[in-house]
């Protein structure tokens, strides 16, 4: 519980710093720290594969991409321009109101009574697993460990039940890659407009 509290506070603090600092490079650094804290939270939740995917994709790719964008769009002197838009108060009020509503809903809901004893232990019988697995022809063996989310299981789920969404995601990533390159291409103009 102490580890959870430390990680949660660190993650939220880094997230808040990431969007409130003036220097964009510092913002990107704190964003990476916040995403790393989220990966730690995933680890504590028992989702190791998600945690490593988070580190790989977010800290390894997205944060670096943001740093690239920050360095490529650094024009002139950031000077003393105001950080916030004109109607920043309404934006902050909207965010605070949303957080108040959601937190009241969380604290007053039955989420606390859902599972007071922590994570549900996996079922002992193999029949229940054959039901969830979706591929009735090949029911899994008895669950070897208490962790229901081994890479083995995730891989089997991705290759059997979720194979079509996986392929669609690959297509989407390819299209996004081509689109990003096309958008960011230098415009071929002999006379750039003043």
């Amino acid at each position: 519980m102490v580890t959870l509290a430390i990680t949660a506070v660190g993650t939220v603090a880094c997230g808040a710093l990431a969007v409130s600092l003036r220097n964009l490079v510092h913002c990107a650094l704190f964003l990476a720290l916040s995403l790393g804290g989220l990966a730690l939270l995933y680890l504590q939740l028992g989702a190791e594969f998600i945690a490593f995917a988070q580190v790989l994709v977010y800290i390894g790719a997205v944060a670096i991409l943001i740093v690239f964008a920050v360095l490529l769009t650094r024009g002139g002197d950031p000077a003393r321009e105001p950080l916030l838009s004109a109607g920043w108060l309404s934006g902050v009020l909207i965010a605070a109101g949303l957080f108040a509503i959601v937190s009241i809903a969380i604290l007053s809901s039955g989420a606390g009574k859902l599972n007071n004893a922590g994570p549900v232990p996996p079922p002992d019988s193999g029949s229940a697993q054959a039901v969830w697995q979706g591929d009735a022809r090949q029911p899994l063996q008895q669950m070897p460990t208490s962790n229901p989310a081994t890479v083995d299981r995730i891989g089997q789920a991705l290759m059997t039940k979720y194979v079509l969404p996986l392929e669609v995601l690959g297509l989407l990533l390819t299209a996004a890659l081509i689109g990003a390159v096309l958008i960011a291409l230098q415009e071929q103009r002999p006379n750039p407009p003043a």
Partner: protein
Amino acid sequence: MTPLQIYLLVSALLFAIGLAAALTRRNAIIVLMGIEIMLNAANLNFVAFWRFGSHPEALTGLVFVLFSIGVAAAEAAVGLALIISIYRHFKTTDVNQISPAPVAQSPGTSRSQGELAAGSNAQEGSA
């Protein structure tokens, strides 16, 4: 307070931070970072509900988070490419100074703009 509620509160707080950033900051990159933080908050919710739900062996939440991470990566790539392209065009990343061609103007200025565009087209054609 149970662990599930702690995770949900952290997620809600992160979402509020991201929303505030996307609504108030002027720099487009920070706006995109706020959107990324909001996506991550939703992912944390998925994982928490997967873990503390009654069927953690179903892996639904985990697989959804994996797909969500993939889509967020695509979104970040396209968004940053758009920001770089916009910066090249407008020489700024301030979302308040980025606007399309002025729409509410008198006919005279719009005609002059049309002539300007035609002139530049002709210039490009001659070149």
